């Protein structure tokens, strides 16, 4: 079989066997509805409680502060719309950043069309927000600050604790999208002091279609999904028990293996970054050199375009992603690459390779070797390259 190397762990991860094993009985044997009073229902409820405890433990929260959702995007929607609608008597101003996931940015744009005001904070060349600009942006109408923990494209880690302190001092709620953070950096919600934080299961070797949000006790928030009394009347809909069980197990494993996981992927990340820098000219590492996701590699290769890079890599079995316009389905390159000040020309040549638990040293060697050939082949074809030669 053709060699296949998966380096797109920030897009999704393969589910671990232990996770699948734990989920299996909940599809057919223990299939009850957790709201039912009979033994079938109690079985499901018990599994739900265990999963909730595991998520809570993974982030230092109380179990009563964890609510399951249908994924990370739903949780982002819930956090922002839920806070906005529940607190609009207090104010109508929200602060976020220009490099948020679309599940945050598009919600903010929607709220802008519905009477809310939104400030989009700039970021520096590494993708870091400016705490002074944040302080200045807060007004007496500000009700929410939403800043992502770890950026999904360039891996930059924001100063969450400092942001939380500023928010607390001003009496503003602070939400952080921690989808890329969970299982990749240590998280303690109490120590960080955030009010809302959300996660996605399939980014941590769990099943797709399930996520969770931490809502600190006392936070005033409306539901997003109205209906039944599930999730303590805050998120209606029969719980996805197999998914939730899998997510709980994945979170437990992620925390048990956190140190080894970080050490493994960080070593390979640095090897890949060095390999690219030392062997290919006209490249730029995107994101922060040190405050970055331990498995994130994001480079721009000048004079070539991202989609042709991805296709070429795919032909030799390597799976990555790009922020070029041609891969985003829009006219412009990724908003994150634009926000860190890249020109369109440079941003079109971006490549994100994200490393995970199943990545090996041999994989990285293979990728570097192939990348050198592919970049050279595409540059030989590029009219931009002949001008600099």
């Amino acid at each position: 079989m053709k060699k296949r190397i998966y380096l797109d762990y920030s897009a999704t991860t393969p589910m671990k066997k232990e996770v699948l094993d734990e989920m299996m009985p909940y599809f057919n044997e223990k299939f009850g509805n957790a709201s039912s009073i009979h033994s079938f229902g109690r079985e499901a409820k018990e599994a739900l409680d265990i999963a909730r405890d595991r998520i809570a433990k993974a982030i230092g929260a109380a179990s009563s502060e964890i609510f399951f959702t249908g994924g990370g995007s739903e949780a982002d929607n819930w956090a922002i719309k839920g806070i906005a609608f529940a607190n609009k008597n207090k104010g109508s101003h929200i602060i976020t950043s220009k490099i948020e996931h679309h599940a945050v940015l598009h919600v903010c744009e929607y709220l802008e069309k519905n009477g809310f005001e939104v400030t989009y904070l700039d970021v520096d060349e590494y993708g870091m927000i400016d705490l002074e600009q944040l302080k200045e942006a807060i007004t007496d109408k500000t009700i929410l600050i939403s800043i992502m923990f770890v950026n999904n494209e360039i891996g930059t880690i924001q100063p969450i604790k400092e942001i939380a302190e500023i928010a607390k001092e001003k009496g503003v709620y602070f939400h952080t999208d921690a989808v890329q953070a969970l299982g990749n950096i240590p998280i303690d919600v109490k120590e960080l002091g955030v009010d809302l934080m959300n996660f996605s299961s399939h980014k941590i070797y769990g099943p797709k279609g399930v996520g969770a949000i931490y809502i600190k006790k006392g936070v005033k928030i409306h539901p997003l999904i109205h209906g039944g009394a599930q999730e303590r009347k805050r998120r209606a809909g029969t719980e996805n028990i197999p998914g939730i069980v899998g997510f709980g197990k994945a979170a437990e494993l992620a925390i048990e293996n956190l140190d080894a996981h970080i050490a493994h992927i960080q070593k390979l990340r640095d090897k890949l970054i060095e390999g690219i820098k030392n062997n290919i000219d006209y490249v730029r590492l995107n994101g922060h050199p040190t405050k970055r996701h331990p498995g994130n590699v994001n480079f721009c290769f000048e004079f070539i375009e991202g989609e042709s890079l991805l296709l070429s890599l795919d032909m030799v079995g390597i799976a990555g992603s790009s922020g070029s316009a041609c891969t985003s389905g829009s006219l412009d390159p990724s908003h994150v690459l634009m926000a860190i000040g890249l020109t369109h020309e440079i941003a079109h040549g971006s490549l994100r390779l994200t490393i995970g638990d199943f990545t090996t040293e041999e994989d990285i060697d293979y990728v570097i070797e192939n990348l050198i050939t592919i970049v050279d082949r595409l540059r030989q074809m590029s009219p931009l390259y002949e001008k600099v030669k």
Partner: protein
Amino acid sequence: MYSEKVMDHFMNPRNVGEIEKADGVGEVGNAKCGDIMKIYLKVDDGIITDVKFKTFGCGSAIATSSMATELIKGKSIEEAVKLTNNAVVEALDGLPKPKVHCSVLAEQAVKAALYDYAQKNNIVIPGLEDYVPAKDVHDHHDGDGEE
């Protein structure tokens, strides 16, 4: 996403390179939008005896450049000027809708090179009488139909 023909022309592009002292050179697109095509022509007695290209762009930009050069090689300049983007798309067994603009760019690159040849030789090629070399002929913004 892409047909086998597109992938073949992307992975094994025909006629890549430059022609020294080319008789006509056309360059269209811009780096800001993410694609530039440059076509070089060698013309003898009104026949395109050689053609080369260089392209910065996505897979379909490279494949359409390759196919466009194949379609005009050995043709008369009068025939070459009639090359349409649809002919390029058809020859490639189709392109995804958001990528059709690449074929438009390929057609434009061929016309730009022919125009350059006509200017250098002080002739008028039928079909290019009204041709105005645009600074940016890139029509990325029309009919992509995505979002």
